């Protein structure tokens, strides 16, 4: 090879190698992104000590409205567990309070807007006028047909094999289409990471065999967590024993958060 041929070859080779390298790196990056929960949580690898196998589970949650006393512990525990900012406009879960008076007037408040010790519960003006009042915990419905996943332009949000919709914070470009697409107002843009954020059913706890934080702290067992694939799960029993409803069924999102004793006024 003479000098001229060598230079010619080099001119073609260097950019070509650069492009191929970048493509290869990107392809490799995609692979790890798809396994994000497993990669982030060493315990989640199928061959790990506790033998967690994502495809063996399919998680959902039941909420018994009649058992919720509005203590707000779930919302507080969630913020602590998941590093959710303190401000009263970033929530992965919250509790609404409904008051329906005799004239059919519905007033709704969010008790989680207050602090941990003092949930925001304004006194009812005239208790004799009230016909029904109840609390409704809200969280990501972990839909089986999630509109947020459908619209994400870069596949940054996706459903794991165990049925949890999560967000890859390293892939999210922050377009916020998912926030617009969620009918339940569950998503927010995290002010520190500047990517979309929402409830993950505490997936990092699930892979260790623990319950989500909100379920663990609930003093009245108003939140029932479980595996829809396991016949022995509490959630399956809850689903058998109660008449259930999901939020906004007309939107055909197929939520996996099931409410028992839910009032028609709840949206």
């Amino acid at each position, binding site marked *: 090879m003479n000098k001229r041929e060598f230079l010619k070859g080099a001119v073609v080779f260097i950019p070509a190698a650069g492009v191929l390298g970048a493509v290869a790196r990107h392809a490799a990056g995609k692979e790890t992104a798809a396994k994000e929960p497993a990669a982030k949580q060493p315990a989640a690898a199928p061959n790990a000590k506790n033998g967690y196998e994502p495809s063996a589970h399919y998680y959902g949650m039941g909420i018994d409205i009649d058992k919720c006393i509005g203590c707000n512990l779930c919302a507080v525990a969630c913020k602590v567990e998941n590093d959710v900012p303190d401000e009263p*406009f970033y929530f992965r879960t919250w509790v609404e309070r409904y008051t329906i008076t005799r004239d059919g007037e519905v007033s*709704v408040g969010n008790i989680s807007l207050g602090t941990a010790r003092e949930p925001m519960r304004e006194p009812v003006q005239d208790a004799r006028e009230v016909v029904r009042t109840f609390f409704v915990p809200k969280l990501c419905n972990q839909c089986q047909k999630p509109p947020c996943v459908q619209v994400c332009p870069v596949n940054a949000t996706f459903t794991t094999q165990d049925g949890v919709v999560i967000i890859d914070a390293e892939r999210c470009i*922050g377009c916020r289409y998912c926030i617009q697409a969620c009918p339940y107002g569950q998503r*927010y843009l995290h002010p520190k990471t500047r990517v979309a954020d929402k409830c993950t059913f505490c997936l990092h706890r699930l892979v260790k065999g623990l319950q989500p934080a909100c379920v663990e702290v609930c003093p009245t067992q108003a939140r029932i967590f479980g595996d829809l694939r396991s016949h022995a799960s509490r959630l399956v029993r809850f689903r058998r024993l109660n008449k259930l409803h999901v939020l906004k069924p007309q939107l055909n999102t197929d939520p996996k958060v099931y409410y028992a004793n839910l009032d028609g006024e709840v949206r």
Partner: protein
Amino acid sequence: MSLTKGADGLAELLGQVTGFIYPNEIEVHWSILIVVYPYVTGLVAGAFILASLVKVFRIKEVQPTYRLSLLTALAFLLIAPLPLLLHLSQPQRFYEILLTPNPTSAMAMFGFVYAWYLMGVLLLEIWFEYRRDLIELAQTSRFPLNWVYRVLSLYSKDTSEASLAFDRKATQVITIIGIPSAFLLHGYVGFIFGSVKANPWWGSVLMPIVFLMSAIVSGIALVILIYMVRAGVRGEPIDMPCLDRITSYLFYAVIVDFSLEALDFVHRLYQSEESVKILGSLITHKLFMSLWVVQILLGMFIPLGILVLAKACGFGAELRKLLYFTAVILIQIGIFATRWNVVIGGQLFSKSFRGLTTYKMEVMGIEGLLAALVLLALPFVVLYVLLKLLPTEGPRGKALSGATSTARTV
């Protein structure tokens, strides 16, 4: 309470919420930049449709605005992705949308629709339209411009009759492909909003069509505006038959646009779905000024009245020019308000349908008013450069292109 950085502006909005909203809804995520985006894209589509009137429908009167329309479309198209890019909270990752797009995401299709329209339609049509000029300009202009033209002409040197005939054929074919492409470009933007079933203000099958029609209105009005201002600045006479003709098209386009909006309104009111109450309070409170006053009254009724007046009363050319000029400016403001009402309006009510929030626009920030104004001004800078580089008349000062160039080459 200690505030997380970036959250300080939101706390003060808490007091302005009326009724009940889901807590995360306090932040209006799609800001004024996302208002600018469909506005600018609409101008592209509209300007192109106007240009196609000459090529496909062979409307000779509109010829003087043909090249201007094409260059306007290009100038605005080049700027169109900027508001989107600046709006991302992780703009350095924008390329993900091109490398690993999610096929079920309407937004992920942006790269493809944009690239097709830019490369497959607009640049090609402009190149064929200007090829002969570029060759002549490369010969007549001095260094370094002659090299710029040589590169722009892609080193083409053939000015034979056969090659010019091919140019004409090519622009014709590209325009025919270009019309559905322009529809696709802006209809697609409408689909981004119209397909959001969670949001009753957006989720409507009419959305892409309404977007398209208002795009045509704004694009035509913009080309008229630029044509008139440019003629004024250069001290050239305005071609009145051309102006009369285009404003007629503008008039019909506004009528169709208004009919569609009215249909949408009546349909919602008559169907009276779950959301009707909150949307009613949205348009009577939060959007009262921007919807009823600016969009409908200033942006549609008054310009329609002005156009009727100008057409029917047999005024002289000077007065007609003044009336047209006023009408197109009002229409521009009206269409901007239309985009505002869709984008911002759709985020001001809670998806619980029980309350309203407020949008407080930043002034200085990257998603603020100033950034939006810069983004709206940039296409005009690009257009200025394009017009300097690619004159709308031929190199010898003659009106070129289309009908006249055919006459000359025969």
